[in-house]
């Protein structure tokens, strides 16, 4: 199959107009030895055959429509209202380019401006960019900003931060003269004593994930205070849904706040594409990476939107740019903006409360089971860690038999974490599902 619009007669006329006898004449400058091959690819397919083929491949996935998911760890099974995709998938959004031609892209530019506004409201921060690739690379860019901005060398990245995020920060900083220190945790939260010891005069930034990878709420305000006392910047990586009820990072002293936007109206989609949000306090506005949209006027004074502050960016500054990022995840950010519009003020709070309610209901049910022990005494939002028996026999089979996916085994991320599991509970989970989960765990002799 192909999607060519020229007919054979068009092609003949075009070659004639160009003045060549065949297509080969147009590429005659490609050295012959480079052209001497045929791609070895499967035969092309019609649309009907293609859909059948992909259906067959997809059948080898257990998808979360058929299972109750307690899997989280960075991407979450939230309900996405039908309207989100209906609007975001309009051809005018999905098939337009970056809004460099402002007059032909007011739709995109306005939704970016509105997105930036909503993200600022949510986080309590001063400014947001138009979005990043994801939460992890956004956190890495935040660390770069802090290093550049302070001229210092050390980034404190506690072990309670998502292990994949820490790995990405390490990759991004690997060719700089930077040091990463990873304080341990006590009772599921950053060990404040270890953090204080690490906080020296050469510290550029302290990172805190709130809630952290174990689901636990960190003492963010206290850490912010310690960080600023040491003259470093405070970077918070936050769950956007939690901000319906939890204090926003702008209020507890974050200089930079970032996070994964997937919970805001984006499907799990095997981990991407999603979007990272990136916000700063006023002093760091001109150090923001990536695109920013601003409101201005047109020639006759009408409200208009345009990409702005581009002197930071690679297409103008080239090797002196604040980042090499050249894109944002607009369509994913659009889904976020539509989702937040549908939620509204009241809905955001209600959604956060639902998550707290469902998560604590499941926690109580599981905690009551014999042999389940707690991992941390600290409060949590919609994710929590519990200690089951080490290497629980037949846990996976029993969960599958009860049509449950998850929880996440932490032994895959940390040594010495056998039997510890991370449970994510969103508004989608029901009381009946929590009971099924408890039964499956009990039956698995996981205790």
């Amino acid at each position, binding site marked *: 199959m192909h999607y060519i619009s020229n007919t054979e007669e068009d092609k003949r006329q075009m070659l004639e107009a160009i003045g060549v006898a065949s297509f080969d004449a147009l590429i005659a400058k490609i050295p012959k030895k480079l052209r001497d091959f045929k791609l070895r690819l499967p035969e092309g397919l019609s649309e009907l055959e293609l859909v059948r083929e992909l259906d067959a491949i997809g059948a080898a996935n257990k998808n979360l429509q058929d299972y109750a998911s307690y899997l989280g760890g960075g991407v979450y099974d939230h309900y996405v209202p039908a309207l989100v995709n209906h609007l975001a998938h309009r051809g005018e959004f999905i098939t337009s380019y970056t809004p460099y031609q402002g007059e032909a892209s007011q739709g995109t530019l*306005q939704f970016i401006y509105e997105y930036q506004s909503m993200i600022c409201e949510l986080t309590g921060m001063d400014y947001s960019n138009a979005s990043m690739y994801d939460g992890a690379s956004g956190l890495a860019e935040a660390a770069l900003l802090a290093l550049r901005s302070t001229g210092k060398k050390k980034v404190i990245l506690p072990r309670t931060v998502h292990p994949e995020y820490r790995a990405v920060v390490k990759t991004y900083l*690997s060719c700089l003269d930077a040091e990463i220190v990873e304080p341990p945790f006590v009772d599921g939260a950053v060990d404040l004593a270890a953090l204080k010891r690490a906080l020296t005069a050469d510290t550029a930034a302290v990172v805190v994930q709130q809630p952290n990878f174990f689901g636990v709420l960190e003492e963010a305000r206290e850490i912010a205070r310690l960080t600023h006392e040491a003259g470093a910047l405070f970077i918070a990586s936050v769950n956007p849904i939690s901000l319906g009820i939890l204090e926003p990072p702008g209020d507890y002293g974050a200089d930079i706040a970032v996070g994964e936007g997937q919970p805001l109206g984006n499907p799990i989609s095997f981990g991407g594409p999603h979007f990272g949000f990136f916000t700063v306090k006023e002093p760091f506005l001109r150090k923001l990476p990536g695109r920013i949209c601003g409101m201005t006027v047109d020639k006759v004074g009408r409200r208009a939107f345009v990409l702005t502050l581009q002197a930071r960016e690679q297409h103008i500054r080239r090797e002196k740019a604040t980042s090499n990022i050249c894109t944002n995840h607009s369509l994913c950010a659009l889904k976020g903006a539509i989702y937040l519009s549908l939620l509204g003020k009241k809905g955001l709070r209600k959604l956060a409360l639902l998550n707290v309610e469902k998560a604590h209901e499941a926690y109580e049910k599981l905690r009551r089971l014999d042999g389940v022990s707690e991992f941390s005494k600290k409060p949590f939002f919609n994710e929590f860690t519990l200690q089951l028996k080490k290497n629980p026999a037949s846990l996976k089979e029993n969960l599958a038999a009860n049509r449950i996916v998850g929880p996440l085994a932490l032994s895959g991320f940390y040594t010495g974490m056998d039997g510890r599991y991370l449970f994510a509970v969103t508004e989608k989970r029901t009381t009946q599902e929590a009971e099924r989960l408890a039964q499956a765990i009990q039956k698995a002799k996981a205790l």
Partner: protein
Amino acid sequence: MSDLIFEKTSRNDAGWLPALSHSEEEILKFLPASALRRSEAHLPSVSELDVVRHFTNLSRKNFSVDSQFYPLGSCTMKYNPKVLDAIAAADAFSQTHPYQDPQDAQGALRILFETQTLLSEITGMEEFTLQPAAGAHGELCGLLIVGAYHRYKKEKKTKVMIPDSAHGTNPATAALCGYEVVQVKTDARGHVELRDLKAKIDKEVACFMLTNPSTLGLFEEEILEVARLVHSVDGLVYYDGANMNALLGHCRPGDMGFDIVHINLHKTFAVPHGSGGPGSGPVGVKKELVKFLPAPRVLKEGSQFIYEKEAPYSIGKLRSFYGNFGAIIRSYAYIRALGREGLEAVSEHAILNANYLKTKLKDLYEIPFDGYCMHEFVMSAKRQKAKGVKALDIAKRLLDFGIHAPTIYFPLIVEEAMMVEPTETESKATLDEFVKVLQEIQKEIETNPQKVLDAPHTTPVSRIDEVRAAREPNLRYRAK
């Protein structure tokens, strides 16, 4: 009608959420008061219908491939088949979690593995990673691999060479990875100037980043010699895949001597541009670089697809999880639908369309470099500028005729550059219409230039005050 959604009010009860089973007070007992939000987030407050109207009306203010010809050079704004959107949105793929047991996600892993294999074949490389989220992210991946390779060989390298026609991400990425940028000149024929390359190359050179066809739309005829020169100082040759749409099935970067390539799935392989993203920028490498690829890769063991367990030389992770899966699956399905013949036809018609347009426009515009072009070409509005009308003005006037502007002022080495890429999916009839419109604009330049200078006239807004936007930044709505 450009009211912000914040400026509208109607009833919003978020009725799509289920009811709470407990009172707020009971739920709040689970959280310490000190951790709670004290002031409300000022989100919009509107009904579902108002949300529908707001975003529908916004969408109508956009140009898009679905509604207009979009000859934006270097961006490959081709038609992206709708069946790919449907496949990506299917529950089997969009509702699969990256932390599911690989046994329960064999379909997703198979897509990743087979895409790695298909891209390797198409580009002539040994192995691919699908982690990078965009072209610039792929460049970062590529240069980190360059660094890892030279560290492994205990060679100290400090420079990255790029042509003076390169995209801004190339030098920005080189700087991010700690390299000094050395620019190589373009010769009178539009190619890398070999003399300048020879004069500047030395043992400190880690890498030469290059697109082929170049940003001028021309095939680098001396590519084999360029690669030989770079390899002679143990530098690596990096392929920026921005222009891969010209080569499918006709030649391969791997055979040209490139060691590392990134491919923009959102250009060549039918991932829609989505108002600026998400895209995907997979990176392929030659055999001796495979061990440096980001971890984990997806491998096949017997009939099972698995994650690579150990990767001691890997540059690490570039993002969470395994890449922009929802984009990757579109490209996978696209390659499966087209097969070899379909892919060959893509580049054939992309090149045919570009050369046809160039022929038709050569009397109207100055074409700074002779010869047949590949999938795009650069023309200059120098003659028009002499009459007081710049490339920017022509770009804006095109919008009035329902045609998106070409890329303008890039590459930087061509004065009043207009870069035109028609893509393979456009018909001769559309191209003829484009030519007719440019002829009409030319008449206006001769007889009524003010009409062009004042353009656009029919878009939702006229020319935008960018200076004010930058001087008095208004970057968010603030509730009164």
